């Protein structure tokens, strides 16, 4: 389906679009979907390992954004972070409903380059470049720290679950969590990755 509002929102920030969504205007909503739908869908598919489940998660997250845009609080992050947080939370809800071994299988899957189908817009290319940047930062971490972060972020694993599954002391997992996220923060800062 093509956009009902072609070109709408090109010069507007995410915050400005979200204000329009809060006024229940479809055009800015569709502009936000155009802008962030591919990242949202990729994140959900990475977490859930299934296009169908990813569709459900993204649909629910965007409808939640549509219905609760007025409650957005800029002090808690950018609109994009807010949206992707909703995608992640919904995906984690779906993961928790799965059998444990299936959940673990999906979470452990390696990073797989998933090439988008169809034409890529300029924004898509920028985001692909951003993905490469963030992956570079992740790749700079020691593998054992990166593994802990990925299991937690994409698979919703707790520290206790990781310790049990990999038969390692809980304190070690806690240490790797803390060191890994701190190093990622510095690596992103060095690369110059901007949040949001």
């Amino acid at each position, binding site marked *: *389906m093509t956009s*009902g509002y072609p070109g709408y929102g090109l010069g507007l920030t995410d915050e400005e679009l979200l*204000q329009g969504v*809060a*006024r*229940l*205007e*479809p055009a800015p909503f*569709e502009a936000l*979907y155009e802008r962030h*739908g*591919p*990242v*949202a*869908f*990729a994140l959900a598919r*990475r977490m859930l390992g299934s*296009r169908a489940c990813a*569709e459900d998660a993204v*649909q629910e997250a965007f409808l939640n954004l*549509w*219905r609760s845009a*007025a*409650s957005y609080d800029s002090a808690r*992050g950018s609109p994009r*972070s807010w949206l*992707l*947080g909703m*995608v*992640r939370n919904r995906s*984690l809800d779906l993961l928790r409903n799965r059998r444990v071994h299936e959940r673990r299988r999906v979470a452990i899957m390696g*990073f797989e380059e*998933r*090439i*988008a*189908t*169809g034409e890529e817009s300029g924004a*898509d290319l920028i*985001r*692909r470049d951003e*993905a490469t940047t*963030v992956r570079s930062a*992740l790749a700079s971490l020691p593998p054992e720290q990166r593994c802990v972060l*990925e299991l*937690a*972020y*994409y698979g919703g*694993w*707790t*520290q206790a679950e990781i310790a049990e599954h990999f038969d390692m002391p809980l304190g070690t997992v*806690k240490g790797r*969590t*803390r060191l890994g*996220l*701190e190093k*990622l*923060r510095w690596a*992103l800062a060095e690369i110059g*990755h901007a*949040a949001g």
Partner: protein
Amino acid sequence: MKPDDDCGPAHMAAGWVLGMLAPDEAREFAAHLADCATCQAEVASLQEAADAMAAAVPPAAPPPELRGRLMATVSDEAELFQAAGSHESERVNTHPPRRRLRRAPLAAAAVTLVLGGTVLGGVLADRGDRRAESRTFPGIVTPAAGAPDARAAILVRGDEAKLVLSDLEGAPDGQIYQAWLERPPSAPTPTGALFSVGASGDTTISLPPLRGARRMIVTSEPARGSTVPTLPPVVIVDLVAPGRTPG
């Protein structure tokens, strides 16, 4: 920034940000976080790094049908709200932006749903270009569960049904709201819609197809829900308008 070395719980900040803490640890850190500016800053900083992980996945085009489904829902609801709140829009413009955006649309829509559901249903029904006929069924919120201006209505389009609630009180502690469909003479059947409401009291709940149902009720039930209603309904929506049945 690095957390203050003297701040004992600061080592939990990363686990907190990633949602990895055990429940008792999470409660402990949440209580600490409320009063610790150092940890608040640390959490905010680490949160940015965690949020960036979403961008590590190469973007992938969602299926085109997803946009279609989203925009159909969004367009329906926007039209519903606009039809409900033309006078309201003038009033809300007098508020600061954040407040103005807060809740007027849903409240306005709900009021009009209750007062003029059939009219709105007609408005939506006329848009037969790409969507099935839409209908609204106004309902009531009993005084036990709602402020005097609490409102309830069900919007139906094809097999999709949404329960729109405004100004509903939260369920009692340890309980949750559960929606039921009544198809006499059978006992009410649970819909699987278990929900709570936030501080605003506003929410929209998806319901299963209403085929053959004569009434939708909401009761307050134990946290895991019930197989039969255990308390009187707090929301009632009659689904049988004269001369028609839902679905």
